[in-house]
């Protein structure tokens, strides 16, 4: 049993969840995810890790309420317990001194890009962070992100803060700031990761995406998380979740997530992801 330290809605439909799990907290790195179950009948739900406190033994994730499991998670109160919290899973994001790195976050990925940016900063990179949301009221953790970034940008659909538009404004923003990234790392919803990959491909900017397929075990046992990368089948939970966005077969990936059809994206649009 794992104790809920905190669960609060930080912007509409996005929740911050902190769980006491000392073994996971001791070894987690940026880019890892955890698999949790809200109760004994619940699904095994994968969530990216957004922060941790090794001393206190806690791990924090940001999740969006979309279906049955995340609805149960959204009911949790401090002091409650959940039966499963397994991790850290997946390979960590590769951190090195790349030079200039552009970190892009959207929806829950605004949270999970934070430890990536922090680690890149510590490794001596020039870190630019770009956050995308539908409107200003859906932004969170901006102060934390600014602290670990050399430059910070917002894009909002309605223009309430930062640049008005969506991620396709990314090259213009970079050009205006006089920056040319040596690497782009994107966390967030599938559509945004795909869009960024499409935009950066002709520019030749290496782009790393943190894939989020359907999963069950998260340890390489079931194969449901498979995707095609450069023509080869990979298991996102053990070979990823980070992959080269220019090599991912997005069409297949979206079909496998069953989110290719517009109607299945509806819950996300409602919940403010912006795509």
């Amino acid at each position, binding site marked *: 049993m794992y104790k809920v330290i905190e669960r609060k809605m930080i912007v509409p439909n996005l929740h911050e969840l902190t769980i006491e799990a000392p*073994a*996971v907290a*001791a*070894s987690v790195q940026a880019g890892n995810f955890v698999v949790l*179950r809200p109760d004994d*009948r*619940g*699904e*095994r739900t994968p969530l990216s890790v957004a922060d941790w406190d090794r001393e206190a033994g806690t791990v924090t994730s940001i999740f969006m309420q979309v279906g*049955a*499991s995340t609805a*149960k998670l959204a009911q949790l109160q401090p002091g409650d317990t959940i*039966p*499963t*919290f*397994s*991790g*850290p*899973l997946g390979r960590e994001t590769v951190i090195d001194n790349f030079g200039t790195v552009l970190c892009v976050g959207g929806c829950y990925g605004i949270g999970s890009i934070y430890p990536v940016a922090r680690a890149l900063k510590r490794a001596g990179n020039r870190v630019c962070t770009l956050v995308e949301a539908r409107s200003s009221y859906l932004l969170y953790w901006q102060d934390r992100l600014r602290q670990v970034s050399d430059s910070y940008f917002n894009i909002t659909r309605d223009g309430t803060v930062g640049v008005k538009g969506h991620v396709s404004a990314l090259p213009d923003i970079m050009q205006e700031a006089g920056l040319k990234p040596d690497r782009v790392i994107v966390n967030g919803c599938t559509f945004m990761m795909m869009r960024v990959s499409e935009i950066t491909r002709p520019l030749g900017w290496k782009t790393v995406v943190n894939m989020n397929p359907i999963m*069950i*075990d998260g*340890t*390489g*046992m*079931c*194969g*449901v998380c*498979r*995707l*095609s990368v450069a023509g080869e*089948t990979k298991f996102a939970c*053990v070979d990823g979740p980070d992959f080269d966005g220019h090599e991912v077969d997005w*069409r*297949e990936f979206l*079909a*496998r997530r*069953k989110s*290719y*059809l517009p109607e299945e994206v509806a819950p996300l649009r409602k919940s403010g992801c912006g795509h």
Partner: protein
Amino acid sequence: MAEKKRRDTVRRSMPKQDDFERRKNFAEVALGYTEELARGEAARCLNCKKAPCVSGCPVNIDIPFFVKAIVDGDFAAGVRQIKKTNALPAICGRVCPQEEQCEIKCVVGRRGSPVAIGRLERYLADWEATQAKIEKPRLARKTGRKVVIVGAGPAGITVANDLCLLGHDVTIYEALHEPGGVLTYGIPEFRLPKAIVNREVKYIESLGAKLVLDFVVGKTRTVDNLLEEFDAMFIATGAGLPWFLGIPGENLNGVYSANEYLTRVNLMKGFLFPDFDTPIKRPANVIVIGGGNVAMDSARTAVRLGADEVHIVYRRGREELPAREEEVENAEEEGVIFDLLTLPVKLVGNEQGWVSGMECLKMELGEPDDSGRRRPVPIEGSEFHMPADAVVVSIGNSPNPLIAATTPGLDIGRKDNISTDDNGRTSRHNIWAAGDVVTGAATVISAMGAARTAAQAMHEYLTNLT
């Protein structure tokens, strides 16, 4: 008396759930012997002095002894004897390939059908479960030595049992949220009720083994990190990584590995959706690719989920099916259609990315190959199409490379299996391994047999530690 035994050449059949009824439920198919049937069957045993059956059993159970105990009605004595070498009799009695192991060696089998050793073992184990108090063997004095076991499948459970009895302090780490390994996530409820697996795990815990779930060794903590706290390690992580065919269309929606299909149903209780949250599709036309026990389990699961038609597609002939004969018969009785000598070449999908069918070739048997089985060769121009709205790929598994990749100095063989000596010791002096992770996908009882050997070797090592 001896006269009468020789004439009794036919084994007692075991009552089963009706063919039609059982297609609609997940309850156990084979119902087990009644006391009368068990004693009648046991009476066929000749109580051989040098019983050949014992050498056929990978854990060398004293078969004549326990069978005699049934004849005498001293069930408790029978159970005690079995448990000396087999910690999981209720499980082995159900899923062991007995016909190729103990029973094939039975002398009664030369002039009729062999004594139904597996069914009798099951009878005793089930009898014990109905008793108010489960007998516990005496534990040796605490040695103060600490052992860590990775993986709570049959191999891990066996070593935990043996080392607890020998007085060592045992902790098991398991990646999933339930113990049991394949017994829990793979083999379906209708063949091995999960209550039995849980009972066996509780028993091991009652001997003092500590079980830690949701703990992925190699991820949560590495092998070397754990060994700072423990005197020795036993790795029993199985062969859990599913293979795919590598044919076009394999990543279409509706194409599952057998592991995914069975895990959704068994571990996640998908058949009880929406009471449990994990969904499982209930397609009408299911194709299962493969011919082993795993394929039979997948096909019979599809029948129970209400499919109209379930096909098993296998590239060799019926004789070559690697599954137990009993399981093939069960599948046939439940209406599974066998498309033998058939090779899948391509999966086809619809606009939305869902599988809609499979292109196949007909095969014929040619010259024998390395395995001594006749090699199937495609017949030119024999292409044909099979419609399907779900395809379950069940062509095998290999060990998960997670631990190998994070443990320096651990020798790994071809196909990612951990290399060991005859006693299960790996290239690292304080790490042993056994079961599917060493042999590749095999059987419950062979995993247990190798685990017992390793446990003995570990005990010696721990005893001599200064």
